[in-house]
C-alpha cells in the first residue's frame, strides 16, 4: 500500500506542500489538516506540488475548493505545480484551471508569489 503523505517545506513566507501517493476520500482529511495548520499559522501563500501524486479523486479536489476563498480573502493563494498528465486531466475535467494558477514547477509558482509581493 503506497498510501498518502504530505510534506511541508517553507521558503520565506511561502509554504510548499508536497503531496505523495493517493489523494482520495480516505486520505483527503490529512491534506485538509495540513492546510488547516497553515491557516492557523497565518501562512496563506501556498504552493501544492504534485510531482509524486499518483492519483486524485473528487474528494481531494474538494479540499482545494473548501479553502480557496478563505485563503484569498486573507490575501493569499493556493498555486498548483508539477502535475502529472493523469492528475491534470481530473482537474481539467472539473474546470479547475479557470480557478487555480497551475505551473510546470515550484520555482515558477514561487516567482509568481514573489513578483506579487514586490509590486
Amino acid at each position, binding site marked *: 500500500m503506497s498510501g498518502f503523505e504530505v510534506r511541508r517545506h517553507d521558503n520565506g513566507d511561502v509554504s510548499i506542500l508536497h503531496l505523495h501517493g*493517493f489523494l482520495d476520500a480516505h486520505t483527503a482529511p490529512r491534506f485538509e489538516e495540513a492546510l488547516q495548520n497553515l491557516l492557523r499559522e497565518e501562512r496563506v501563500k501556498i504552493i501544492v506540488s504534485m510531482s509524486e501524486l499518483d492519483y486524485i479523486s473528487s474528494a481531494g479536489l474538494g479540499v482545494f*475548493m473548501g479553502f480557496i476563498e478563505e485563503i484569498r480573502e486573507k490575501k493569499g493563494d493556493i498555486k498548483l505545480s508539477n502535475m502529472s498528465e493523469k492528475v491534470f486531466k481530473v482537474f481539467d475535467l472539473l474546470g479547475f484551471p479557470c480557478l487555480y494558477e497551475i505551473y510546470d514547477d515550484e520555482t515558477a509558482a514561487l516567482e509568481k508569489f514573489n513578483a506579487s509581493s514586490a509590486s
Partner: protein
Amino acid sequence: MNSKRKKNTFRIRFPSSTENLETIRDIVKKLALKAGCSGDEADNIALAVDEACTNVIKHAHKFNARRMIDLAVIYTSEKFEVIITDKGKGFDPSKMPKPDLDKYVHEARKGGLGIHLMKTLMDEVSYTFNPGVKNQVSLIKYITVRDT
C-alpha cells in the same frame, strides 16, 4: 464471435469504508485491462468506481463500516459494466445539476463533484433506488476495438 461475446462476471463484497477504496480501484483497473480497455480507460473506470463507492460510504451508509457494499463487474470484449449495490439510505444523484464552481468557491462546498466526474468518465451512468432495500448504480464503458 462467441469468444467476443463471452460474459465474465466478478463479484466482491466489502465493508463500507474509505480504507478499501485503494484496493477496489486496483481490482477494477486490473479487470478493465484484462477486458481490453486501454490504460487511460482503465484509470477512468477506476476513478468513476471510486466516486460511486465514496458516495455510498458517505451518503447511504454515513461512514458506518459495518455496512457492506456489493460490487459486480460484468464484461465482454465490447462492454465493461460495474454495478454497485447498497442497502442504505438512497439519494438520487442523477437529479443533481452540473456543479457551478464559482458557487462552490463561495460556499466552500466540497461534495457533488464526483457525480459530474462519473458522468464525464463513463458512457452510461444509471441509478435505481429502493432505500433500505436495494440501491444500485450502474457504470458502463464501451470498449473501443483497437487494431492489433
